[in-house]
Structures are given as structure tokens and as C-alpha cells.
């Protein structure tokens, strides 16, 4: 019974996520278009609403090209290896009380551990393509993701410490009085650092040195076409949304809001907050220029990592003195 139930919920969440990913691309394109005084997708369907469907169809129909000199096994496996952790992170994200696949007692840890696995897929893609641009990109990917996973994890651990639990639902309930994003100084700083680390972990401008289309054309996915490209794209956006969800859960009080006792209203609040995080990240993306690889590493190791460590230490003291922040 429970296995069948979890499988069903998992199936639903998977499809919801994929549907959301498809439409989040439209949201981002429309948002970027407004920022750039353009209109954005407009012609496919009413007001461009069918654009993501058309994009997906186009990618499915495209010819799948495997370069003759590519390492076929690694090349073909990479999109899947990349996609799986990106989708798997949704397993422990509750949308509302009781609405989610599994509310593990180590939810945050699971998320952080699984999401950092995507690097394996990235590296396989970059290596297996047997392309110099892709190789350089894979090299950058390893550099960057290792550097930014640490501050990302430390920033995410601040709410964990404050709430005294790794379980998502407990963390959310602890924010009933005060969102951690608004928690004086510690929470605010942690939220900002979390956003910065998010940008880097998601490989978005200004940290998109992996893709860096003006230097490395398209980075590790330069040789991918058709459905494999679509899978990579899907994985990337899934990761992005997953991180936005995590941000909303850890810092913005998840599903809490007026009327959130009804699960559906709670889920709505949660999605709204997650989209807010997503749009902030998108806003940054479309206003900054990319920074150079050495600056990115310096920013992580010399500034962000020590800062998050100190913050974590201070949080520890605060919690030791005041006890966990209860809702």
C-alpha cells in the first residue's frame, strides 16, 4: 500500500515538476523580455502560451547527432546522469503539510547531497563529447561546483541550526512567527549568501562560466542536439526550480501564509514564494555580465566560504544561548 502510494505521489510530482520546468522557461523568457523592453514569445498559442510545447516538440523531432569521435557510452549516458539528481531533489520537498513524496527527517541533507551529484553528469558530458570547448567547460564545472557547494551548504545550514532540524516540514513550522529570511542579521545575511551561492550552483549569469556561450560556445553541451539537449536543459531548469523551492522552504516560510491550513492554499503560497526566489535569480541573471573563472573561485574561497562559516558559528552561539527558534 505505502509503496504504491509513494510511487503514485512520486509520479505525480515528477510530472508536475516537468510541467513546471516547461512553463518556467516561458516565465523567464517573458520576464527577460520585459526587462529588455521586448515582448517575448507571442505567436504560438494565445499570447505565446504554447511556446514551451512547441520548443519541446521541436527538440524531440530534431536529429540526434553523436560526434564520430565522441566517447559514445559516456556521451549518451551523460544527459540521464545529469537529469536524475536534478529530478531526485524534489523527493524531499514538501509542497504543503503532507503534500510531497517523502518528508524525510534528513530532508535538507538529502537535497544538498543529491543536488551536488549533477556535476558527474556535467563532467561526463564535457568529457565524452571529445570537444575542446566542452572539455574546458567540464573543467570549469568541476572547479565551480566544488567551490560553491560548500558555501551553499553552509548557508542552507543556518536555518537548519535555527530550527534545530533537518526535516523540511519542521523547518517551515519553526518559521510560523518569523521567516528566517527576516531573522535579524543572521537570517538576512544567510539568505543573501544563499542566493549568491544558488546563482553559482545553478550556473547562471554572472556565474555561467560553464556555458559561457561567448567564450565556449555552449560549454559542455555544445555537441548535444535534439532530445539529449532537451534533457540537459530540463535538468538545468529542474535544478533551478528545486533550489528556488529550497530557498522558499528554508528562508521564506514555505507554505505559511493566510489560509495555509488548507493544503492547496498552502501549496499556492509555496509556489508563489518559490517563483519569487526564481525571479530574483532571473533578475540578477539578466542584469549582470559574467565574471571570470579566477574571480569566481576567489569570490568563493576568499569571501563566501569564510563568511558562511563564521555565520554558521555565530548561529551556533545564538542557538546555544537562546535555544532553537520555535514557531
Amino acid at each position, binding site marked *: 500500500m505505502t509503496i504504491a502510494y509513494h510511487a503514485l505521489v512520486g509520479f505525480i510530482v515528477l510530472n508536475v515538476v516537468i510541467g513546471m520546468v516547461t512553463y518556467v522557461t516561458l516565465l523567464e523568457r517573458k520576464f527577460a523580455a520585459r526587462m529588455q523592453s521586448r515582448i517575448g514569445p507571442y505567436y504560438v498559442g494565445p499570447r505565446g502560451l504554447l511556446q514551451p510545447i512547441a520548443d519541446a516538440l521541436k527538440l524531440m523531432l530534431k536529429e540526434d547527432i553523436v560526434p564520430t569521435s565522441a566517447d559514445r557510452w559516456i556521451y549518451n549516458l551523460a544527459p540521464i546522469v545529469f537529469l536524475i539528481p536534478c529530478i531526485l531533489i524534489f523527493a524531499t520537498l514538501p509542497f504543503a503539510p503532507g503534500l510531497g513524496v517523502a518528508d524525510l527527517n534528513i530532508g535538507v541533507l538529502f537535497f544538498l547531497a543529491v543536488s551536488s551529484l549533477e556535476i558527474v553528469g556535467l563532467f561526463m558530458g564535457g568529457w565524452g563529447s571529445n570537444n575542446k570547448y566542452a572539455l574546458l567547460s567540464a573543467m570549469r564545472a568541476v572547479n565551480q561546483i566544488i567551490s560553491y557547494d560548500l558555501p551553499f551548504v553552509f548557508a542552507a545550514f543556518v536555518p537548519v541550526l535555527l530550527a534545530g532540524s533537518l526535516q523540511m516540514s519542521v523547518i517551515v513550522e519553526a518559521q510560523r512567527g518569523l521567516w528566517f529570511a527576516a531573522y535579524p542579521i543572521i537570517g538576512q545575511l544567510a539568505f543573501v549568501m544563499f542566493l549568491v551561492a544558488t546563482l553559482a550552483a545553478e550556473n547562471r549569469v554572472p556565474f555561467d562560466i560553464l556555458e559561457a556561450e561567448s567564450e565556449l560556445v555552449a560549454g559542455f553541451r555544445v555537441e548535444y542536439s535534439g532530445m539529449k539537449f532537451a534533457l540537459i536543459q530540463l535538468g538545468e531548469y529542474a535544478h533551478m526550480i528545486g533550489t528556488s523551492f529550497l530557498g522558499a522552504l528554508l528562508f521564506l516560510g514555505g507554505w505559511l501564509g493566510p489560509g495555509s491550513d488548507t493544503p492547496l492554499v498552502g501549496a499556492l503560497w509555496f509556489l508563489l514564494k518559490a517563483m519569487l526566489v526564481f525571479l530574483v535569480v532571473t533578475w540578477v541573471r539578466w542584469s549582470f555580465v*559574467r565574471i571570470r573563472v579566477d574571480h569566481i573561485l576567489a569570490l568563493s574561497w576568499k569571501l563566501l566560504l569564510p563568511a558562511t562559516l563564521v555565520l554558521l558559528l555565530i548561529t551556533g552561539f545564538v542557538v546555544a544561548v537562546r535555544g532553537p527558534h520555535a514557531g
Partner: protein
Amino acid sequence: MAETLARSTVELGYGGSERLTMNMGPQHPSAHGVFRAILTLEGETVVAVDAVIGYLHRCHEKLAETLTYVQYPTIASKTDYVSAMTAELAYVGAVELVGKIDVPKRAQYLRVICGELQRIASHCLWLGTWCMDMGGALGGGATIFLYAIRERELILDLFETLTGARLLYGFHQVGGTRYDIPAGWAQQCRETLAVITQRLGEYEAMLEDNAFFLVRTQGVGVISRELAEDIGVAGPLLRGSGVAYDLRTAAPYSSYEDFGVRVPVESAGDCYARYRVRMAEFRESIRLVHAALDGLPEGPISSRPGVKSVGQVRIAKGEGYSRIEGARGEVGCYLVADGGPKPYRLKWRGASFSNLAVLPHIIPGHKIADVVAIMGSVDPVFGEVDR
């Protein structure tokens, strides 16, 4: 001379670290057309660059020998298609110099107006593409690009009203200009410039207050004053390296001496200095257009109105070199005439061509990301490089 070595002296032997040779171009998002840079990399660092050009060669100089003085100005604009007005002017100026043809004052002022508007349009495109090189077509660079293109469109609208064309104009003709400004154009022009002046402030606020932009441009791609003079770079590159040299003041043509052109100079020689120079040139060009519109004299627009056939303009035997300050620097045209309706020989001096020669001297030692930033700051137009 520069510390770094030029193409001819770089030995690609085993240097103790693993090296990777990578082609950047001819098809590459940042190639600005068709430029091929063969980079030798040690990790992310470029140790040598071999610049290959010639992918856009269209026999412009030979073509000039087959077309008459009436026909060629339109084709001349295709050498530097981003700054077509100034390219035309260089050719027409050479013919007028060799043929000793007078240009009415009104036509000279019209040439100044169009030349400066073209400089603004060209710099708009430069700003956009350069930021896109640094920021990516999927990032903040694209935002600046679209903003800059929006302003360029306003200028192109002006040109369209004036000549009917948006990219290659055929505005100049030997002896003057082909079109006079239509009614209301001056007003439209002033309004456009007011909009652009205001938006320039927005760009500067968006870029100069952005630490990431500064870190990408300051101290990157430094051209020392000595190197700039040795290589013979021109235009904003030269002025960004501390040399106050601008043909509009050094060798005024087309009545530029009437306006008292102020030449912006920066001494740092890096990408940021070149950016500052071009931003100052935006404002100076806007001022010049206003001044030329204010002082626009009445009178004929051409000393040879109503050309009846393409072979009608003939100039006496002789030769001469006319040069003008294009958006990218000195655009020169050496013309040998044999008394017929067509040039005997024509030689173009493209500003981008000599500016590009500085790349192998300044790129080695930088990261890959800086290569595109430096290339963009040079602002090459490959129509002008390969001709």
C-alpha cells in the same frame, strides 16, 4: 616594445605544462563576423594567439577599378558596413582631393551631421556586442545589447528618412551629398539625440556601478602608449592609450575645424579606458550634431548636381590619399586616377585592420574570458578588415 611576443616569435614547444590548441572562430559567437583566433592554452590561460583573417575578402579594391566614380560610393559603404557613412566619405573625399572638386559648405555640414550620427550608431552597436561578449547572450550582456540596439534604431530611422536606406546609404556623392535634409528632420534629429543623451546616463549607471563589469574591464588588455604607437592602432584604442590624436583636429576635413572638436583621452590603455573614451565620444558627437544643425548654412548641397550617366564624372590624372576619422579610427583611401571615369587603382586603409594587429601583443597571459572582452573592446568590423 611589449613584453609579450608576437606571432612570429612564439615557439610552441613543450613548455613544461600541457598545452591545448583551440580554434576560436571563424564561426564563433564572439568572432564579430568571421575572425579566427588560434589560441594556445595552458589551462585557462592563453599563452599565444595566432590571428587569422581573410574570411570576408570581397575584392573591394579590384571592384573599385571596375566601377565609376558615381557608382562606387554605395559599394564603398560596404567595406565598413557598421559605419557606412564614414566609409563612403573616405572614398568621395579621395576623389574630390584628386579631382580638386570643391564641396559646398552646406554639403560639408551635412557630412559632419551624418558622420557624427553614424559614429553614435556605430558605438551603440559596439557597446551592445561588447557587453554581449562579456555577459553572454543569455545574461546581462544581452540586456545592454538590446538597449543599445534600440538607440541605434533611432539613428537608423533618421537615416532612413534622409536617404531611404538603413544600412548602406549612398548619401555622399562626388562634389557633395545626394540628398538634402527634409522638412522636420532637424527637429526629429534633436529629439532623438535628447533621448540618446538621457539613455547614455542609464548605461553608465548600469555598467560603471557594477563591480563585475569593472573587474572584467579594468586592467584587462592594456595597450601601452609605446605599443599603440608602434603598431599604429587608431581611433578610440589610440586615445584610450593616452595619445590625443584625432583626425578631426589633427587634419580637419569637411569643415570640422569650425566646431572645435574636443578629443577625449584616457591614459590607462585597458578595456575600461577604451570604454570611457567611446562613452565620451558619444557625447561629443551629440554636441557636434547639434552645433552643425545650428550652423547649417543655406546653399547648394553639391557642386555637381544632376549626374546624367554613371560615366559622367571624370577626374584628371593624379593620385592622392584622403583620410577621415571613422568610428574605429583612421579610414584612408588612396586613389590613383588616370583621367577616365573609373579609378586606375584604389587602396583602402581600414582602421579595424591595423587595430586588430595589436591582439597578438596584448592577449597572451590573459584568460579565455578576457580574449573575448579584449576582442570586443577593439571593435573590429570584418568587412573593413578583409575588404
